[in-house]
């Protein structure tokens, strides 16, 4: 049975038709056209789909759109301003924290959540925090470097 759901995505109120089984990631990608959020697995393990729901990082492939009714959702598209990348995005670019880029939206969203709760994370803390974000390309080294630098830039 289809119904409609209303939530705030990247600061804008949006309403769309969903089925009960529609996952948040499908609502974002297919209904709203926000394809920056990726799907990399069907076992809830890869983290390519991480977005923020009410300020917390969540796997958008493992939450229903209807569960997010009334919530504030931030996706990778919501980080940059008109004329500047978010400091965490800028750090990934500067430190070559990506190769193919598939895992990057989830990495960046997880990293921003970490920096909010732990503004000065050690390399070890970054590695622990990113346990649910898999990258098949980089070997993680530059991702960790990027996150440490991005967190520093966010501190200002």
């Amino acid at each position: 049975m289809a119904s409609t759901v209303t939530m705030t995505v990247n600061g804008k109120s949006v309403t769309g038709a969903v089925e009960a089984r529609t996952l948040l990631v499908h609502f974002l990608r297919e209904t709203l056209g926000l394809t920056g959020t990726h799907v990399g697995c069907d076992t809830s393990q890869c983290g390519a789909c991480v977005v923020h729901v009410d300020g917390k990082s969540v796997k958008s492939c493992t939450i229903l759109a209807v569960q997010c009714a009334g919530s504030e959702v931030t996706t990778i598209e919501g980080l940059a301003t008109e004329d500047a990348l978010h400091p965490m995005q800028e750090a990934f670019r500067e430190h070559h924290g990506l190769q193919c880029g598939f895992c990057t939206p989830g990495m960046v969203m997880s990293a921003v959540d970490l920096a909010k709760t732990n503004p000065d994370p050690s390399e070890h803390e970054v590695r622990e925090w990113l346990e649910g974000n898999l990258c098949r390309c980089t070997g993680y080294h530059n991702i960790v470097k990027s996150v440490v630098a991005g967190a520093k830039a966010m501190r200002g």
Partner: protein
Amino acid sequence: MYNFEYHKPASVADAAALIGKAEDGKLMAGGMTLLPTLKQRLAQPSDLIDLGGLADLVGIKREGNAVVIGAMTTHGAVAASAEVKQAIPGLAQLASWIGDPAVRNRGTLGGSICNNDPAADYPGAVVALGATVTTNQRTIAGEDFFTGMFETALEEGEIVQSVSFPIPEKATYEKFRNPASRYAIVGAFVAKGPNGVRVAITGAGPTVFRWKEAEAALAANFSPSAIEGLKHPADGLNGDIHASAEYRAHLVGVMTKRAVAAAG
């Protein structure tokens, strides 16, 4: 995923009524196990009853000599709780080792124990600490709650509301994690308290169990050396692509010793 009717009740009574009248209803807590199962089409419930609106089931409070945690409290909230860290640090540690941050932001204590995955972490704490599970119908002793692989003492549609953990003198958890899934290949929860010493093992068998030989040895002498020569038999333990039963038996000894050493 097959479709279903979605409900978000505002009270436990409403949730119980909804599950009672659904043709083949399922309760949903954090959805971290249930939604992946539905995505794989391994289940086809007619109705999904989301417990996410039940504020009464969320929270951590000290009640006398126990810490009482609501069923819908997330792993992340338990890991970060000052109350839990102070009263039962081993429990906060356990919660902080479940999955990854995004899983801990959604997954709940109630969902973990009701699912009773053989590799789940919480069952170890529930059994070793001698916790009590409160449902909308009764209370169940922690040790009687876990009855088999993915099986519990819950009746059809019964809803877990909270778990009360008596505060021990010492309690520590050690876990050998599967590096890909982060679930326990073997976990040992060791507690010393008014009920003596308890050693609960997860990951190794079809469901959590107490290692009574180790408990007896540790009751006489609470130190890693007391269980130095003790070996857990491999019979009846799980063997799979991640670890053979023999290897798991070996890890039972190693993890228990580490937990005792960490308890100091």
